């Protein structure tokens, strides 16, 4: 293998694929990145050998094709420090040593046999579904945090993708909260799959770099793998098999009180309250009072920590319906407020013990359902 490529391209590619590398592993080669030179490009690949694989293709002058694996951390750190110039790489086949040169820097890095590298799946199946990258990015951000982190119920560690004619609905739930995002798409497909939350977190980052543009989503015929192509990057993930719970029934149909507040202010007050609720329970109490005559409605947020102190914040609010009292886990509130793509949020409640619903004001793409906490009022 003998190639030349631009430092910028190689650096970007190595950072992108490094996200697939597991933090803890028993398989040392998964700490490596696979380099394959062919035609006019160099393909970088990394995988955790379980759930996801990321490949990234960069332009390269290939004088002699070939492949090798190199320790990801070492080569990434080295390339990151090099100037934005051309890098040449030459592999000594027998010793599996790669000599890198860039301007005045040279390095030699030992690799491993590329045949030992876990296979990187390529999905070739149904026609690709095309989605706008920023939209998918928002949809992922608004749902992935609600997925369960404990893997004893595997279906809940993923995000449910439901394609219907002209729309895609993403849903995630962990037993305490539920996030549902619906967006229009061009494709007319009927399909429901569960994508691992970890794969989507990484995809979200790749989408963030892609900015505008499109994502092509492809499934393999067996329905076990999904592939997202975005720009130079390709992320492949094993789908989670199983039936996602029917979540529609968890979204309350009625409400007794609807409280509308500024997302930024609500976020700030919740954050302050959470400081005071920072013991094990994290209870943040909310009291919504409707306006009366010339008095505007308001939302009072309180929290207290045993033996430390307490806090009270007051927000202007548009409150429709009866006065409402409800308590939430402050972390759950912040998680959802963080990802709202609107200036104002509507909080819908029926009783202190029934689920609360948060919706962005001005669009109906997102709905979040969160269980309140049991507290003494």
């Amino acid at each position, binding site marked *: 293998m003998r190639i030349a490529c631009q430092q910028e391209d190689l650096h970007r590619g190595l950072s992108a694929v490094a996200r697939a590398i597991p933090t803890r592993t028993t398989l040392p080669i998964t700490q490596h990145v696979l380099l394959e030179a062919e035609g006019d490009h160099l393909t970088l690949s990394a995988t955790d050998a379980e759930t996801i694989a990321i490949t990234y293709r960069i332009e390269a002058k290939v004088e002699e094709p070939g492949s090798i694996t190199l320790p990801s951390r070492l080569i990434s750190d080295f390339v990151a420090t090099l100037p934005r110039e051309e890098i040449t790489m030459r592999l000594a086949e027998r010793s599996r040593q790669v000599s890198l040169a860039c301007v005045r820097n040279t390095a030699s890095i030992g690799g491993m046999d590329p045949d030992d590298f876990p296979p990187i799946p390529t999905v070739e199946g149904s026609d690709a579904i095309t989605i706008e990258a920023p939209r998918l990015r928002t949809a992922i951000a608004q749902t992935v945090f609600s997925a369960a982190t404990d893997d004893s119920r595997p279906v809940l560690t993923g995000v449910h993708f439901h394609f219907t004619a002209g729309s895609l609905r993403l849903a995630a739930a962990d037993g*305490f909260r539920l996030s549902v995002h619906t967006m229009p798409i061009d494709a007319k497909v009927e399909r429901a799959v569960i994508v691992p939350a970890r794969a989507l977190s990484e995809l979200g980052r790749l989408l963030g770099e892609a900015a505008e543009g499109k994502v092509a989503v492809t499934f393999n015929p067996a329905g076990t793998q999904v592939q997202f192509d975005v720009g130079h990057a390709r992320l492949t993930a094993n789908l989670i098999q199983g039936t996602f719970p029917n979540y529609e029934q968890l979204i309350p149909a009625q409400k007794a009180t609807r409280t509308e507040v500024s997302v930024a202010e609500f976020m700030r007050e919740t954050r302050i309250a959470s400081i005071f609720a920072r013991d*094990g*329970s994290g209870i943040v109490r909310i009291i919504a009072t409707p306006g009366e005559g010339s008095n505007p409605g308001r939302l009072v947020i309180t929290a*207290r920590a045993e033996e430390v*102190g307490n806090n009270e914040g007051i927000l202007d609010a548009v409150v429709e319906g009866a006065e409402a009292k409800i308590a939430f886990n402050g972390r759950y509130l912040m998680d959802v407020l963080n990802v709202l793509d609107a200036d104002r949020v509507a909080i819908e409640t029926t009783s202190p013990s029934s689920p609360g619903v948060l919706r962005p004001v001005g669009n109906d793409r997102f709905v979040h359902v969160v*269980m309140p*906490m049991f507290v003494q009022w």
Partner: protein
Amino acid sequence: MTDRPPIRILPPEVAARIAAGEVIERPASVVKELVENALDAGATRIEVEIEGGGADRIRVRDDGHGIPPEQVADAFERHATSKLRSEHDLYAVRTLGFRGEALAAIAAAADVDLITRPAAQTAGATLHLRRGRTERQGSAAAAPGTSIEVRELFASLPARRRFLRATRSETQAVARVVADYALAYPEVAFRLTADGRSALASPGSGDPREAVAAIHGAEVAAALLPAHAERAAPVEGEADIARCEVAGLVGPPSLHRASRAAIHVVANGRTVTARALLPAVELGYEGLLPGGRHPVALIRITVPPDQVDVNVHPQKAEVRFRHERLVFATVQAAVRAALSSAAHLAPDSPDLTAFAPSTDGTAYAAAHAWPGLDLPPETPVAQPPFEATSGRSVIAGARAASRTERDRQPPADLGGRVPVLRPLGQVESTYIVAESSDGMVLVDQHAAHERVLYEEVRARIAAGERPSQPLLHSVLATLSAPQAALLAGGARDLEAVGWQVEPADGAAVIVRAVPAALAGRDVARALADYLDRLEAEERLSGPDRAAATLACRAAVMAGDRLDAAQQRALLDALARCDTPHTCPHGRPTMLHLSRAALERSFGRR
């Protein structure tokens, strides 16, 4: 069977030897008898010298009131005593000796030299006995007081002499006797010299803490907490009232030993082994000491003389209290009061409200009082109440106070306050290394977090709160038979910590809510893990058991990486605990390496 010897009355000498064998078992018993005589003689200074573990030579010298010359010879007769006159006196003994056996028994077992001089006399009387018989009697110049020298113990009883143990263990036994009396009589100066080397010297200042310092070292003595309790109860069918007063010094839970040797019990000035009372002392420490470890304590019990029977043991090592349960309760109360006043222990639940969130500076200070790591001061530093009007200023006030406190006080005087611990990092993802105002501290992150959560959960239960996170959709969990039994048995306590579980078919249950601290975990597994842990939690019971289990399940585990902010938050929370030194199971949360210890280890001093 015709050879069977007839029954005979033993000759007096043989009877005397048998009795001597009961009273005098080993050199330590000789020392005990002589020291008791010296104390009964009003001595203020007692010097004990031994050689060869006491088997070769014992000398006890005091500055007491001595024996008048004309009574010297009688002193060694059996049942000769100046301390009892009638049988009635026996039931209200106020002196240590009373049986009139000690000197006779010693004389029967060894060679004895006596020199004694009452202060009023100009010359001292001397007496030399060999195997119980007077060999010489005379007079000599002597300091006021009595000096008795015992040589060749058990020379006439070779069987007993053979049973003596190594010199070292006999010396230790003597040292234990002298130590016990030094603790029981802090106003008397004791000195023990073994084979020419000084083994112990108490100042005789009257301060029990100084006596402890002479025996267990100054660091231990400084750490001890004063304990006191007084109880009285009418006795059914009796006119007089059962009374008991307990005073003493008890160690903080951070101070513990592998044996009970450091628990000293003194009843009416008499050192006793008091096996029955040791549990009372240890019950006071329940849940604070690691398993198999024992506290350091000096317990002084005072009851009216007629409410204790000292005549139950030849060596008077055991006493019998007429109202043992009262004594037991008083001892336990004294220990608990000492520990809780030093904020080592949460007081009984009714008082928990004192620790509820409030702007009352004294409650805050009480909740935050900390005895320091291993060198707390003798008296707690008074903390001015914060003049706080809001929660925030309480915090600011506390921070400022602890800062100035720290700056002002030398490290050995941590002032019973929370030493501010600055996290430096983690070892093995299990222990937090922190710098304190005196050296360094290693904190077991799991044990520390358990303690923090345990106190939070208990405080919430006491406040009537139930931090519970209901589920969006209830979860069906299948339990094993033991798990189901635990659930059924402790339903009320489980509900108190936030579980809401309903029985379904067979071994299945429906979970509707989980404790807030477990929110976010897989529900069915969290319940099963919780119940398994609950089963293992045998030291506690009731809501405490449920709370400790929750704390254990919710706490960070050994092996969890904590970032700097998390480490800091954990140490701050630990410092706010009532009992920061141990986890709910009694394991220590921290190890302290003081500056002095570091300097010693590195040879800096």
